[in-house]
């Protein structure tokens, strides 16, 4: 599959990002940084996240109304064939514009190209759904997987990568559900598939696919954990077997899933710290939180509020202690601030959302706990 974006520029972009980082750490001088900029040029149009969002929204509006415009002429009696023709025409048009803009405007995941690509993908799938309406679920998933995977190879887009990933699981789940034995071993199948994908993706080192590989790593680690998580397996088992009981019944191999729920987060965190792999570390932390939640879901001596307070206190104490402890770097770990606080402004906004609710209401009702610092947290994590 030929790559759509200019690979040299992408490499140069990566080089310049590294150079920015070194400049910040004073490892190279300002002049050297300038020289690097000249030696490794890139001419991408990268407007920043907010303009990207705007471009994306308006490009999607343009795409949908363009398709509407085309259908004005061709819709006829609205039969499946007509719809397929319309969507094929639209797809060709979208792809043409996509390639044209990438070539001439130096777009690189800048919102417009994402929108055009998704619109084209959507248009490509329509004929299959409208002409073959009696296929199995896994066959639809396979068709869409073929499209999204091809698109990912060419455009290295994160959403298509994620969809391709999820569609694979759709195929797996749909096939396994057909057999009684399949239902029973579904969690293990999910974990096995995740492990395979993770090891395959780790082999891909090129800068072009860097974002996709990172995302796929995150997803495969997450599905691996969720496949072995006791709560998910137990509740999922009840759902799949249509057991409408007040409590999901105990599952087979329960001790094994206890072990998974406990050990996977610890393994993630350990290797994340050992290998300096941030993805593993953060997923380990999130997985740990979910494991704690799993535990309290089945055996908890406390009320939700007490749990919140205890968990919060525990988090404050541990993180504050670690910040103090790592004041001087130890064990290859540090608390040094890396990168600028790009999200400093957003943090302030978050505070308004979570903590700023003043408790005293202008009426005489009893205020529930929700109004108290932390309107967003409520009763669940």
């Amino acid at each position, binding site marked *: 599959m030929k790559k759509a974006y200019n690979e040299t520029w992408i490499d140069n972009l990566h080089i310049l990002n590294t150079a920015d980082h070194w400049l910040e750490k004073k490892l190279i001088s300002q002049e050297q940084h300038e020289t690097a900029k000249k030696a490794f040029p890139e001419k991408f149009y990268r407007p920043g996240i907010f303009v990207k969002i705007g471009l994306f929204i308006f490009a999607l509006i343009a795409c949908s109304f363009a398709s509407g415009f085309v259908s004005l002429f061709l819709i006829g009696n609205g039969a499946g064939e007509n719809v397929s023709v319309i969507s094929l025409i639209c797809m060709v048009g979208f792809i043409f514009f996509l390639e044209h803009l990438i070539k001439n405007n130096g777009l690189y995941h800048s919102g417009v190209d994402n929108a055009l690509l998704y619109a084209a993908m959507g248009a490509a799938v329509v004929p299959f759904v409208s002409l073959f309406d009696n296929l199995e679920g896994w066959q639809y998933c396979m068709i869409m997987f073929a499209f999204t995977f091809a698109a990912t190879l060419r455009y290295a887009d994160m959403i298509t990568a994620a969809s391709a990933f999820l569609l694979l699981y759709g195929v797996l789940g749909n096939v396994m559900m057909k057999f009684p034995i399949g239902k029973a071993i579904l969690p293990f199948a999910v974990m096995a598939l995740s492990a395979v994908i993770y090891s395959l993706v780790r082999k891909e080192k090129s800068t072009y696919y860097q974002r996709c590989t990172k995302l796929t790593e995150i997803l495969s680690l997450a599905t691996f954990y969720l496949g072995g998580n006791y709560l998910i397996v137990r509740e999922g088992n009840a759902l799949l077997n249509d057991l409408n009981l007040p409590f999901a019944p105990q599952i087979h191999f329960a001790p094994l899933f206890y072990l998974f729920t406990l050990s996977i987060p610890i393994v993630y965190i350990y290797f994340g710290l050992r290998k300096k792999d941030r993805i593993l570390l953060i997923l380990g932390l999130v997985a740990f939180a979910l494991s704690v939640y799993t535990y309290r879901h089945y055996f908890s001596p406390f009320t939700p509020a007490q749990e919140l307070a205890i968990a919060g206190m525990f988090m404050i104490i541990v993180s504050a202690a670690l910040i103090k402890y790592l004041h001087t770097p130890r064990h290859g770990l540090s608390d040094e*601030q890396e990168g600028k606080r790009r999200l400093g402004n957003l943090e302030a906004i978050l505070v308004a959302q979570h903590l700023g609710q003043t408790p*005293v209401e202008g009426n005489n009702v009893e205020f529930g706990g929700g109004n108290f*610092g932390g*309107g967003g947290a409520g009763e669940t994590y």
Partner: protein
Amino acid sequence: MNIQTILKAFVDKAVIPSEQASLIADYEENRPFSLHWELRSVLYLGIVLFTSGIGVIIYENIDTIGHQVIIALIAALTGWCFFYTFKHALPYSNQQVKNPQKLADYILLLGCTTFLILEGYLQFQYNVFGKRYGLAVIIPTIIFFFCAYRFDHKGVLSMAITGLASWLGLTVAPLSVLAENDFTENRLLATAVILGTVLCLAGWASEKQNIKKHFSHTYVFLGGNLAVLAAMTGIFSESAELIYSIAGLALSAFFIQRARLAQSLLFLLMGVVYGYIIITYLIFSNIESDDAAFTFGTFYFMFTSVGVVYFLLHFKKFLGIKK
């Protein structure tokens, strides 16, 4: 593309001499793994969970003997937080102040939050403020404004703005502006537009007067969001449409203007999206027949959205931003 290949490329293109390259390679090899953001996020989440949990616990135990103990504890915690903050505070300046004490910011935030809980509790249990609810809200607001400026803390500033809004009966939290404000009342609607505009002006003034420049983003974002959403509600409900349209469009223009100065493209996005919605609504609310609206709509959306995309692709040229 790893560190070695980049360094090799740098040496080949004569960006850096090879001795320096080997120094950088050493540095990258032995660089400690920074847990800065992970630890900060856990700390922040911990504060959120802890304060919400405590808030509920107090109300669950409102009639038991233990609650006075809890109150004493919270009061002690609040007192300690403020004491710590004052003890480690740096002298006031109009510029951004970086406190070398790593935890000072978070401790102030915790203190302000527990202060709110304490106050709410005292009002509930002992009716300290009686019926003067406004007083109960404005006291923490004043304290927070003071703390935000004195200790240079954006988070506390947004808490202060939230307090000021709720004193007027409004919510400014970005995700709850539409859900929690009662915009069916015209008085509140007008209040929201005016308060939001005043906050925008405050942000603009901070920038102009060079007093805590970095606060302007918080002011403009919270205030602007509130004002524009309120103005849009006003336009849609057909009450005093003209005034609200002017206000909404003026604010959208103000946002787009801000994007030139503050290099904050969030405002460009807000200005474009809000302005587009208002103009579109005004055009279509004046077309009578459905058929005409449909045909015109197809063309209108196709061309205007392409136009907006074109504008955003070339916004630097349009707004005269140099970089």
